[in-house]
């Protein structure tokens, strides 16, 4: 999940949490506010009633002392308020004024009321005054307030979610731009685009700046290595050329005896080996250093059949049966010379490590949309520990084999350079199969 989505979702969730808390808190809050308000109203009414309570009224009450109810009551027409005065003896330590919620039936209609109870003494008598205010409206009101507030919040939640998403996206735009233009599309430091990315946040400007700096350093290193490779090639290969030419000229001397000729020929062979090792190591360095272009159209089928032709002498010399079963015309974009070397190395290995009268089969095909070419031989094969290290430089299966063990290291470097996967399957004394898996995009 992208950071912009994560942030938006996180923001939305926290707001949702706030709304949920409010949903549960609102009734309590509203109730408190409403009760406080009603209480004040009731207190005011009580004050008015007590202030206006005159002798006559009390006398009325006293006169009707025989009245069984011993109550004076009064209520509004819609029963949302009532007032009751009754003669109730005061208990000890009783609070003078209390509030409570209770159900009362007035003229046959039961309602919940907020009731103020006030105890007072008048001319030696204890009275209880009750003033009630209906709660049904308040309940309705609480629900309406709650509902309304929640709707407002949901709308706010939705709007802020959208605003968040767009703003975060705007903020993160430079980040994706850096990834796209500066990191993903760069295969070598020289192709790096140094133009600063415009960003609203300083963090990304800093990231961009630091990336540029890092790339400069890497470019410097690449340049140094390139220079080094070039120097090594020139400085090492020139003396080898000199030695080689000297020995070749020496070989033309008629006065040499057979022994001397043999030694010179041997030295020339050693020199040739030295040259090839240097060239192979340089080749690996140059591939790993991305000093090759990879923009040629390569017909792999053609490469295999060309190689078959080129190596015909050696295949015949070892009396090996080479079967070319390549049937797809797969086109791959890369470096033709390198791909040629890659397949050449696999095929020459298959020749070198084969048994006399053995076979080599070149095959291709598609699995899950991925193209592969495999080179199968009937050679000496390898066990697991050997297959593990065959791609490392100077690794040889056994010491009695020819070669310097660079062929597969080169093959691997070329494969990595082209994003090709090399897989090996091998059984001792039965043979090995090297398979190249190509990327889908091609």
């Amino acid at each position: 999940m992208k950071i912009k989505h994560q942030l938006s979702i996180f923001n939305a969730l926290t707001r949702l949490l706030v709304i949920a808390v409010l949903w549960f808190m609102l009734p309590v809050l509203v109730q408190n506010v409403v009760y406080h308000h009603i209480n004040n109203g009731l207190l005011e009414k009580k004050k008015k009633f007590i202030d206006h309570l005159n002798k006559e009224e009390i006398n009325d009450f006293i006169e009707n002392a025989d009245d069984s109810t011993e109550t004076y009551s009064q209520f509004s027409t819609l029963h949302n308020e009532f007032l009751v005065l009754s003669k109730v003896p005061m208990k000890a330590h009783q609070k003078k004024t209390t509030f409570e919620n209770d159900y009362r039936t007035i003229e046959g209609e039961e309602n919940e009321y907020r009731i103020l109870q006030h105890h007072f003494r008048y001319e030696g008598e204890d009275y209880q005054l009750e003033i009630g205010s209906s709660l049904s409206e308040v309940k309705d009101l609480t629900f309406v307030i709650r509902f309304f507030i929640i709707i407002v919040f949901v709308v706010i939640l939705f709007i802020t979610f959208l605003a968040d998403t767009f703003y975060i996206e705007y903020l993160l735009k430079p980040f994706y731009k850096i990834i796209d233009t500066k990191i993903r599309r760069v295969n070598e430091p020289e192709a790096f685009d140094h133009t600063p990315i415009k960003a609203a946040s300083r963090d990304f400007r800093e990231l961009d700046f630091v990336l540029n700096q890092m790339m400069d350093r890497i470019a410097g290193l690449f340049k140094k290595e390139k220079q080094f490779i070039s120097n090594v090639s020139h400085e090492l290969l020139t003396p080898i050329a000199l030695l080689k030419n000297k020995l070749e000229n020496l070989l033309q001397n008629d006065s040499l005896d057979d022994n001397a000729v043999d030694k010179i020929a041997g030295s020339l062979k050693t020199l040739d080996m030295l040259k090839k090792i240097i060239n192979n190591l340089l080749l690996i360095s140059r591939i790993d250093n991305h000093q090759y272009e990879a923009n040629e159209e390569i017909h792999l089928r053609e490469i295999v059949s060309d190689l078959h032709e080129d190596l015909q002498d050696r295949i015949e010399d070892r009396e090996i049966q080479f079967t070319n079963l390549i049937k797809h015309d797969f086109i791959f974009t890369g470096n033709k010379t390198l791909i040629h070397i890659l397949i050449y190395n696999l095929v020459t290995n298959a020749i070198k490590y084969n048994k006399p009268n053995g076979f080599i089969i070149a095959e291709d095909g598609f699995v899950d949309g991925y193209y592969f070419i495999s080179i199968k031989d009937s050679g000496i094969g390898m066990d697991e520990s050997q297959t593990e290290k065959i791609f490392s430089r100077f690794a040889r299966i056994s010491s009695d084999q020819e070669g310097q063990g660079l062929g597969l290291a080169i093959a691997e470097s070329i494969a990595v350079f082209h994003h090709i996967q090399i897989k090996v399957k091998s059984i001792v004394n039965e043979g090995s199969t090297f398979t190249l898996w190509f990327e889908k995009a091609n």
Partner: protein
Amino acid sequence: MNILIVEDNKELAVEVYDFLCNAGYICKIANNCSDALEEAESNDYDAMLLDLGLPDGDGFDVLKTVRKTKSKMAVIVLTARGELDDRINGLHLGADDYLTKPFALTELSARLFAVIRRIHGFTLNNLTIHNFVLQLQDYKVSFNDIPINLTKKEFDIFQYLVLNKNRVITRLQLTEHIWGDILEVNSDSNFIDVHVRNLRKKLDKHAPIDWFETVRNVGYRINE
């Protein structure tokens, strides 16, 4: 044929110089860019062997300057493999061929022969050795006008040995000439012998070829 050798390694220059003089060329050595340019301006050379890493500059600059005035001069760039891109660059700038160091002198003479022949409009079309005639145009060999059927590789081997007659050519040199500068170490194996054996059989049918020598353990030599 006048040849200018531009090479900063003096010893190497001398080896090439000796070899080419022996082969009948008239040679001159320049060890740096300025000498090379001065020589090329003041004398007419048929060919220039140009090393790229020179102490006072890049061999390419010499090539560029020289190409402005001397279109008939053959230029063979001598370079180390590490400068691979340079090779392609060199061919674009007007080099006629390139050789990677270390190269065999016999290979150099074969390339030089081919380049000079091309520049002079293929006026030289035949090589003759002991009445065997190599027709360079169409890769055919004949003996007293009787055509001999050779494969391309056999013809190449024959031509290479004739061009470098009187010299011992090692199997390695032949292998590199026929199959190119292959990367495999110890690739020198007997499959070159198969071709040489076949070639000799075909020639032997027409005349005794005791001039076509096998140098024990080393290679072959054709004597004039």
